[in-house]
């Protein structure tokens, strides 16, 4: 596939007016800003507030009416706005090695400064950590707890070598959840209302279903949405997945997607020539470049394992089920067979032409299986792939030229396959 030489725009060409944001985008933006502000206000009122890992059983704190903010979301947002560069330097000067996850470095620097250009979070009164996505998180949160001299609640989930969590593991995690409830009751002086907890669990399940539905609507060909758009809604699932406001955002999003389908429209701005699966976290500091390069070649990212990482499934009110769900995550806490099986299914369902692997310098746990994942998925599906180096939040680990060469190479292979499929000739 070749790249068309772009003609210079005529000098006086009027600037294209910016498209107004869809209502759901405005809603999700407001929702996130409100969370940060509400937490600041709660702290000012003297309430106890917490910092939490992204896939922690939020249901408990939510049911207790506690305000929680999420360092991973903070770091991703800062990185996407190029506001974390100084924080990364600060962390390294403080002795945190560049090999440590860039979310952790951003957060550990923020722990010192408590000032950022946006996404500010007040000093926590407790921290909540669940190691179902990686173990580095544990050390990071231990540092936060130690530095702030506040308690840390750890939910230790144990890696899933088997296809699904054993009863013994469920028992182990359930006991920790009970402990968490008591601990948070003690800190906050509030009493758990178990009906409220069931209600929060019900809302969380509804949100999980809606999130899945929104994602799955991209299986329509051509997709009614630019897949990168979904990155903008992830805060719903990371920071607000137990809230009714998320239900409203996602219902609005789904309505918009369905409207696009009905009208044959898409937010993907050019013709969808190729559909790809994206493996790994977004490269936040270069979100624009990664997206525009794909767009240039008519590639829409229609599915990603990462966006679906919050597919936690349980019966409302069932705390054992809650424990099981947080062990049986779709991604990092699972063995290769399970992850590959899920990916192969998604590759077929979303009718993708290629896979793009983000070799993310920060996230060792996501990278360590990647060569084998690539091999197995491409063997099972016959779908070509490429990989590129980057980092979720460190701007120093990405080369625009190298990314483009790999994408262009992938396009050439996808084009070749397409021709073979269509005409039987090459």
């Amino acid at each position, binding site marked *: 596939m*070749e790249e068309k*030489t772009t003609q210079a725009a005529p000098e006086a060409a009027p600037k294209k007016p910016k498209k107004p944001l869809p209502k759901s985008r405005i809603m999700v933006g407001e929702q996130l800003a409100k969370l940060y502000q509400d937490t600041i206000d709660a702290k000012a009122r003297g309430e106890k507030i917490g910092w939490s890992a992204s896939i922690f059983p939020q249901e408990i704190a939510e049911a207790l009416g506690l305000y929680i903010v999420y360092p991973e979301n903070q770091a991703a947002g800062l990185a996407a706005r190029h506001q974390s560069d100084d924080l990364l330097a600060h962390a390294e000067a403080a002795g945190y090695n560049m090999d440590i996850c860039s979310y952790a470095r951003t957060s550990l620097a923020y722990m010192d400064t408590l000032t950022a250009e946006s996404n500010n979070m007040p000093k926590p009164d407790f921290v909540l950590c669940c190691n179902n996505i990686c173990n580095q998180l544990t050390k990071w949160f231990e540092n936060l707890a130690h530095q702030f001299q506040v308690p840390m609640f750890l939910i230790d989930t144990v890696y899933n070598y088997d296809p699904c969590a054993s009863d013994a593991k469920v028992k182990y995690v359930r006991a920790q959840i009970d402990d968490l409830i008591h601990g948070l009751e003690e800190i906050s002086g509030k009493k758990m209302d178990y009906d409220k907890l069931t209600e929060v669990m019900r809302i969380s399940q509804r949100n999980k279903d809606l999130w899945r539905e929104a994602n799955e609507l991209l299986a329509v060909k051509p997709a009614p949405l630019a897949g990168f758009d979904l990155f903008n809604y992830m805060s719903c699932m990371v920071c607000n997945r137990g809230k009714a406001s998320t239900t409203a955002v996602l219902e609005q999003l789904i309505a918009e997607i369905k409207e696009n389908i009905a009208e044959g429209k898409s937010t993907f701005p050019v013709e969808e020539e190729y559909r790809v699966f994206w493996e790994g976290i977004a490269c936040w500091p270069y979100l624009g470049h990664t997206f525009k390069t794909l767009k240039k070649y008519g590639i829409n990212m229609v599915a990603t394992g990462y966006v679906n990482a919050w597919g936690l499934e349980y019966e409302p009110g069932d705390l054992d089920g809650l424990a099981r769900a947080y062990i049986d995550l779709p991604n990092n806490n699972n063995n290769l067979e399970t992850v590959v099986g899920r990916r192969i299914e998604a590759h077929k369902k979303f009718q993708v032409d290629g896979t793009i692997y983000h070799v993310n310098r920060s996230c060792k746990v996501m990278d360590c299986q990647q060569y084998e994942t690539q091999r197995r998925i491409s063997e099972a599906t016959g779908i070509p792939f490429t990989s590129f*180096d980057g980092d979720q939040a460190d701007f120093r680990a990405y080369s625009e030229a*190298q990314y483009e060469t790999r994408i262009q*190479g992938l396009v050439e292979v996808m084009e070749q396959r397409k021709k073979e499929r269509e005409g039987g000739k090459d």
Partner: protein
Amino acid sequence: MITMGVDVGSTSSKAVILRDGKEILAKAAVPMGTGTPGPGQALELALTQAGLTRDQIDCLVATGYGRLTFPGADHQVSEVTCHGRGIHFLLPEARTVIDIGGQDAKALQISDKGKLLNFVMNDKCAAGTGRFLDVMAKVLGIPVEGLGDLSAQSEQPVSISNVCTVFAESEVISHLAAGAKLSDIAAGIHTSVARRVAALALRIGVEGQVAMSGGVALNQGVVRAMAAELKRPILVHEDAQLAGALGAALLAAERAR
């Protein structure tokens, strides 16, 4: 029909002119890459050789690291595809192509028509690229073109275990300090590069005959080491360095048709 391919690499520039996508009319290589006068010089050299002017070129395709900034190209195609095409023209029997460029390395699978079927590229690291060889030649105090002949005299190759170029550099320096022979160090350097790149080829699956492309293919030391790593012979054409530009000129001919 006259077409041209220009391969704007990170450390060198190459140009090839073709008649009817079949006959090579001119070829030029300049040891200066993107951002230097190199690409322009390669273009001019090739035109002079063929006795042509730019307007007589029906289609020009640029490839290589600097393809997007090279002025005057009709199209740009990635070096991944161009190397596959170029090698197919030179060595039609090859099905696996290994290209070591200035700052990247890749392994390709191509069809019997030279079409790209699959590829893998190196991850972010200078190890296993032409740059690694440049740095090591400098430490040894010899021109990089001399590395191949030097390593041919090796009796007991040293082992270079670091993949980080900076660490490998100090490893080479300590071998020098310990009195190791230059030829043995050169052989060790080649094995180190070959191991890294052979792993890429093995990941994609080595099928049929294997050819090396790009300037590093002219280094017999790397070729020998690669053959040893892959346990099979490696085909090298004398114009291997021009494969990218040649592939671009072939694709230009397809476009012009």
